[in-house]
């Protein structure tokens, strides 16, 4: 059991290597190996989650047998188990979806896309599991490099948008690394548990303050916290669906997770709230980002651009949870990590399915899809109900806890921001819904299709019907997830999240 923390990223790293080697001979074998790696790491994550919840204790693994704090330690605690299960779950779902989508959108690139996907998931899982601040940087860059590779296989403008993202990412990583340097030269250790023991005595040390500020700025760049979000729309616009479906749901969230980890478990209590006003700053930037993202999302004509601006707003909900810095608000933020991952993953995958069947990515062209792809559009409706926050979907509960947290903190402006942004997201998502269920009119390609219930046995460019099973099943799983997480949110909170926010007292 104690090997679980090490197994999760190792299986994926191994799968990435084998998948590349096998993929050069046979693309199918490469895909199979990568899928197996993702599936195995998901199973191990679930095992770890069950183990952590049932024993109530973190599982610790010393890498290479070097005892921490000398060596690097991997820690699977409640928060890490929560995150790795989410990451590997989204990974498996996107892997199931990938072959058909890649074959259509980026023919001939799949051999290299599968190892990159496995590497990306490995990097993100490693970031959540590691108990070492420098090791976190290494995994952060592994994930980032894999993401650059995946994003660049997209459309014509892909490499250019990715290059701009790379420059931002390199600056973010650099700031974080610099912060690690300041921290190491003041405290003399890189181990998170060790740091949390040493830092209370260094509360007033200016080098430690500089370290905290630099690390948070670096992670905020990676998290696309407003106003550091500017790279996001272009990147998602040009990305293949698989890359956007993997990066939008989990990658920005893992950076938010890293900030939460620093806030709760590394720096002493009160350091981020009183010594330095980091949480308040993040909260106000998030409030601005929520409004900005929601308003710009209304103005977009391209489906993926709309989702990108919506992501700027949605990641800010997590930031708002950090900003509230009280247990109930942070629970809302943490719950929103999972909710938004499921919902945004769902919406991006649906976008890819629509593109496969009709070639459409612009919202005004989506007319009549409710007729030709009924099941996909039912899933879409579940997704937008979640985004707007209508019970019993998952999106309702995270916003509900955030509102409770805002009441508790007396933050009425943030309270209003959450309400207003829900209305704004209703505006931009119902605009799409209205288009979809509108009568397709004189378009002959669409009206000839009435039955639309079948999900298979169609050639790739035949513009009709729901997507093939390999693409529809992931969509269905995520849609079910949006509802199930909503209905069972109290289980997640009582089993996991209450333990996570315990350092805040309450």
């Amino acid at each position, binding site marked *: 059991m104690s090997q679980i923390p090490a197994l999760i990223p190792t299986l994926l790293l191994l799968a990435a290597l084998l998948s590349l080697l096998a993929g050069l001979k046979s693309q199918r074998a490469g895909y199979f190996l990568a899928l197996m790696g993702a599936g195995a790491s998901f199973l191990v994550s679930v095992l770890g989650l069950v183990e952590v919840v049932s024993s109530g204790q973190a599982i610790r693994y010393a890498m290479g047998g070097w005892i921490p704090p000398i060596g690097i330690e991997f820690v699977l605690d409640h928060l890490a188990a929560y995150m790795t299960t989410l990451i590997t779950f989204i990974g498996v779902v996107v892997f199931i979806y990938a072959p058909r989508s890649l074959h259509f959108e980026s023919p001939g690139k799949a051999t290299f896309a599968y190892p990159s996907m496995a590497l990306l998931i490995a990097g993100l899982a490693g970031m959540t599991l590691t108990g070492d601040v420098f090791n976190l*940087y*290494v995994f952060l860059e592994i994930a980032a490099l894999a993401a650059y590779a995946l994003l660049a296989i997209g459309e014509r403008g892909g490499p250019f948008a990715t290059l701009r993202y790379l*420059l931002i990412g390199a600056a973010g990583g650099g700031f974080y690394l610099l912060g690690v340097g300041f921290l*190491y030269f003041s405290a003399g250790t890189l181990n998170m548990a060790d740091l949390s023991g040493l830092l209370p005595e260094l509360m007033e040390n200016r080098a430690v303050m500089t370290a905290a500020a630099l690390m948070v700025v670096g992670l905020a760049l990676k998290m696309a916290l407003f106003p550091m979000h500017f790279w996001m729309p272009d990147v998602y616009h040009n990305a293949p669906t698989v890359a956007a479906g993997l990066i939008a749901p989990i990658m920005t969230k893992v950076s938010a997770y890293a900030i939460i980890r620093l806030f709760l478990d590394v720096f002493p209590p009160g350091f981020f709230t009183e010594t330095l006003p980091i949480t308040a700053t993040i909260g106000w930037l998030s409030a601005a980002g929520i409004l900005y993202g929601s308003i710009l999302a209304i103005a977009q004509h391209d489906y993926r651009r709309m989702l990108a601006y919506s992501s700027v707003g949605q990641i800010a909900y997590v930031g708002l949870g950090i900003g509230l810095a009280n247990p109930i608000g942070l629970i809302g933020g943490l719950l929103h990590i999972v909710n938004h991952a499921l919902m945004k993953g769902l919406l991006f995958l649906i976008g890819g399915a629509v593109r496969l069947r009709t070639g459409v990515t612009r919202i005004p062209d989506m007319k009549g899809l409710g007729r030709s792809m009924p099941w996909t559009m039912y899933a879409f409706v579940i997704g937008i109900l979640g985004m707007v926050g209508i019970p019993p979907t998952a999106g309702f509960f995270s916003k509900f806890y955030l509102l409770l947290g805002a009441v508790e903190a007396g933050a009425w402006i943030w309270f209003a921001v959450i309400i207003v942004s829900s209305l704004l997201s209703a505006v931009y998502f119902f605009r799409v819904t209205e288009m979809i269920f509108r009568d397709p009119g004189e378009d002959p390609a669409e009206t000839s299709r009435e039955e639309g219930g079948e999900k298979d046995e169609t050639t790739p460019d035949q513009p009709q019907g729901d997507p093939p099973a390999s693409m529809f099943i992931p969509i269905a799983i995520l849609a079910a997830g949006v509802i199930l997480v909503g209905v069972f949110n109290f289980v997640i909170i009582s089993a996991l999240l209450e333990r996570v926010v315990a350092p805040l007292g309450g």
Partner: protein
Amino acid sequence: MTIEFFAGRYPYILIAVLMGIGLYGMTMKRNLLKKIIGMTIFQTSIYLFFIQGANKSGATIPVYLEELGTEPTQYMNPLPQVIVLTAIVVGVAITGVALALLLLTYKRYGSLDEEVILRRMRESG
């Protein structure tokens, strides 16, 4: 501001200047290749920060010697050096990927100037 202030801190001041040059290049230059050069300078300044922070005069390599015993001031701290080595590997990988993306961009748009590329992107729709 006495001469002693600079004498004690000049490596850090130089590192900060280098970092400023790097960030300036990354953000202000229009040419994508110059942006990548700026990124490399920025990363290098971070490596130098780690090396300078770990610097000890008169210390030897961190291998146990009979005549020096276990006195920690006599040995260099190997950890920052290892961090820098790892960071250099990461930095080289990032630069490699950046140059590959640069090449693809140049092949598609025939320019390295950000403004020109954006204009050509708009023209082609």
